[in-house]
């Protein structure tokens, strides 16, 4: 089993063999596969020090010279510490760049709130031109890496710190170009659970108790959201959005705004982290339980709205 970051960087490693326009920048954040890049492609790797702001400005300089730049660091710092650099650099200048953000949500339990990225989705989503990807397993991670290598966009890729078990995609319908996959049997009369990232695995466990009453949309591309999702869900009555983020501006807000764009309102229920900083210890699973994002809490909410 591999970490998502290693899977992503292995794809970059493979492309570096033939594409020397690729540059990888790190703000003192590592990975086994990053060591391989540093060793083999030293000329295409820049250690920027613990200087996220300058890392983005340097990345902007490289992108202005038409390089394919991948900027890599821990989620809380690569998103919020340098958000104005992302705005004034690749966003305003419309430059392709991929931000590899590792450790979203409560990934760094029990480091505490300074190390949690529980508002990065809302913050980066607000920046013009961003494409946001949140893989829930290595299959998606690999495919997202390939997409970012060729799409010439400002990509924000939200990777999990921990291992994520591969979802059995034989029993799921994945549409890579549309940015989502359906887990379980789709039916307009069922409840749709929409989520992304590691928390999807809790949703899967919950829905397994009521497979005839719900299915899951693994929305691995949450900005922009494909119109195909609307076509699929236009007759759905109830949606439960589950996100490992604080209440304001999380995935449920994106889903609500998405349907508003089509002039449709839906019954959308949001399950997220609470409006408080989380200081409790005990590991991520316990924090999920304490904050209503474990499988039992998701199941309870699902049954409530059923």
């Amino acid at each position, binding site marked *: 089993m591999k970490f998502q970051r290693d899977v992503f960087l292995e794809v970059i490693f493979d492309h570096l063999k033939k594409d020397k326009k690729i540059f990888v920048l790190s703000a003192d954040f590592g990975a086994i596969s990053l060591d391989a890049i540093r060793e083999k492609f030293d*000329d295409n790797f*820049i250690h*920027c*020090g613990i*200087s996220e*702001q*300058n890392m*983005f*400005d*340097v*990345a*902007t*300089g*490289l*992108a*202005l*010279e038409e*390089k394919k730049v991948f900027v890599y660091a821990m989620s809380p710092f690569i998103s919020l510490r340098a958000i*104005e*650099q992302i705005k*004034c*650099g690749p966003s*305003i*200048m419309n430059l392709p760049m991929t931000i590899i953000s590792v450790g979203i949500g409560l990934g760094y339990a029990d480091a505490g709130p300074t190390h949690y990225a529980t508002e990065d989705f809302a913050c980066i989503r607000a920046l013009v031109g961003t494409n946001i990807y949140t893989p829930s397993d290595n299959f998606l991670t690999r495919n997202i890496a390939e997409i970012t290598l060729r799409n010439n966009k400002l990509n924000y890729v939200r990777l999990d710190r921990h291992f994520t078990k591969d979802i059995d995609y034989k029993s799921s319908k994945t549409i890579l170009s549309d940015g989502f996959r359906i887990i379980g049997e789709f039916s307009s009369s069922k409840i749709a659970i929409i989520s992304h990232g590691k928390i999807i695995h809790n949703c899967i466990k919950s829905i397994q108790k009521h497979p005839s009453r719900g299915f899951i949309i693994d929305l691995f591309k949450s900005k922009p959201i494909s119109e195909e999702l609307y076509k699929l869900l236009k007759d759905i009555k109830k949606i439960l959005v589950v996100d490992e983020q604080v209440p304001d501006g999380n995935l449920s807000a994106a889903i609500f705004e998405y349907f508003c764009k089509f002039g449709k309102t839906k019954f959308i229920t949001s399950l997220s982290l609470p409006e408080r900083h989380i200081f409790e210890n005990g590991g991520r699973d316990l924090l999920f339980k304490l904050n209503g994002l474990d499988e039992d809490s998701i199941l309870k909410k699902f049954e409530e709205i059923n």
Partner: protein
Amino acid sequence: MDSFHNLKSLCKRYRSELFEKFLLLGQGHPGSVFSIIEIIVTLFYKNHIKFDKEKQKFIDKIIISKGHATSVLYPVLRDFGVIKESDWQNWGTSKSNLRIFGNISITGIDATTGSLGHGLGIGCGMAYLYKKQNLNKKVFVIISEGELYEGSTWEALLFASHHKLRNLYIIIDENSLIILGKTSDCLKLDSISKKIEDFGFTIKECDGHNIDQVDIALNLKSDTSKVIVAKTIKGKGFSIMENRPEWHYWNSITKEQIEICRKDIS
């Protein structure tokens, strides 16, 4: 055009043209623009920034990190034929994409700037690349003294120092003023040179309004980045603006003041 006399006249003309533009538009950052006129003229007309006549573009890069002063480049770009005369004439209307803060949609502007503390890092990225690729291209970054309050500027200095970016020229416009007054009263920066010295750069202080001194400083040869601490006067050339922090921005101006300004640069 490189004789001292001609370049001095050119500085005067650029001051005059930019003053009339700011007056017409009722906006601009005259204090910051007029403090770097001689620096800009030296860079472009003393062949520090090389020009490819065939391609009609500059080979070397210039980033005005103090983005509110980007408009200082417009008359130069016009005179080199990089932007059209009509763009200059129509500045302030929908027919021209020139604006107070430059951006990369304007030919000849190498980076969009405006928020302070970004330009040096962007310049580092470019200079790093040119050095790695053994390209004979220089990167000139003009930062304001006030940008030394931004942490990102110091992050970039560390980067330039570590990578020995010998093709990077950092010009600090030391006019001793920020919006609310003197830097010495607000948050002391003195001595800038001493603070930067330990990075291992080649540092030269000069009178930023003396073309010969600026030229000598820009001709420094070394294996490290060059830092030119240019002592300047905010609003240089206009008696009502010189050393007046309120002229960071354009102000309402009386007919008498307009005449004084025109006389100052006649």
